[in-house]
């Protein structure tokens, strides 16, 4: 029973952080090239425009949800299971979500990289 709790919490982490990452990425694409914008309008405008972006705020909320899911998961399961499982599944989920929702061109090279990094993170964090 406890395992089911742990794994649902891990899935919640993965879901929330994937949603958060996609929203943040979309927000920053809407804000545009930060370096360019800063040269033209100054750092304050960059910060205001980022903080005022709806996707950014939603993304931060999703990230906070991911953090609290992590706390729940850690209260039910071992950190040596939760941390690597959540981290590596997040990488895979992000690649899929970026392809679907951000229309990024996830080619073979990126898939291989994502799988390698996810495996490496699982080994390192475990």
């Amino acid at each position, binding site marked *: 029973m406890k395992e089911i709790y742990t794994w649902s919490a891990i899935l919640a982490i993965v879901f929330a952080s994937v949603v958060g990452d996609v929203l943040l990425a979309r927000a920053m*694409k809407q804000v*545009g090239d930060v370096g360019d914008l800063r040269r033209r309008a100054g750092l304050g405008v960059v910060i205001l425009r980022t903080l005022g972006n709806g996707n950014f705020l939603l993304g931060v909320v999703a990230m906070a949800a991911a953090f609290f899911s992590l706390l729940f998961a850690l209260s039910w399961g071992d950190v040596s299971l939760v941390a690597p499982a959540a981290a590596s599944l997040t990488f895979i989920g992000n690649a899929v979500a*970026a*392809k679907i929702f*951000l229309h990024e061109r*996830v080619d073979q090279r*990126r898939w291989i990289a994502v799988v390698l*990094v996810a495996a*490496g993170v699982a080994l390192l964090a475990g």
Partner: protein
Amino acid sequence: MLSHGMKQTGSISLNHLQGVIFAILNPWVAIGILLLLAFFATYMTALSWADLTYVLPATSFGYVLLALVAKFLLHEQVSPMRWLGIALITGGVGFIAGGPSLTEHPHSSTKIPAGTSPRESGEGVLRANNAGVETPTSVER
């Protein structure tokens, strides 16, 4: 440079959360929070330049630095499985950067049309990349 700083801050603050936080409480926590903020800011900046599927694996290089810091500064034991993990991450990051020589230019994402030299001056790369990224909504706001 940016990516280097990003990875360093990422690794150092992760390092905080895992080990140092318990030993020395207050000043370290403050530094950790500042570094996390800096990490977040640079992460958002990187996202404004490159794809999520590019930035995220590149950021994971922080795990590698974290393990190296743990070994050489904190003298922790790094098991063979962890070395394998380090090798896998390094390989993956190398893969996504299109060869080790490009790792310093995370914003020169693969969206750039083939033939654009990533070794141009920084601004040229940024412009080229900005034009190459598919951002139908980038002119909003």
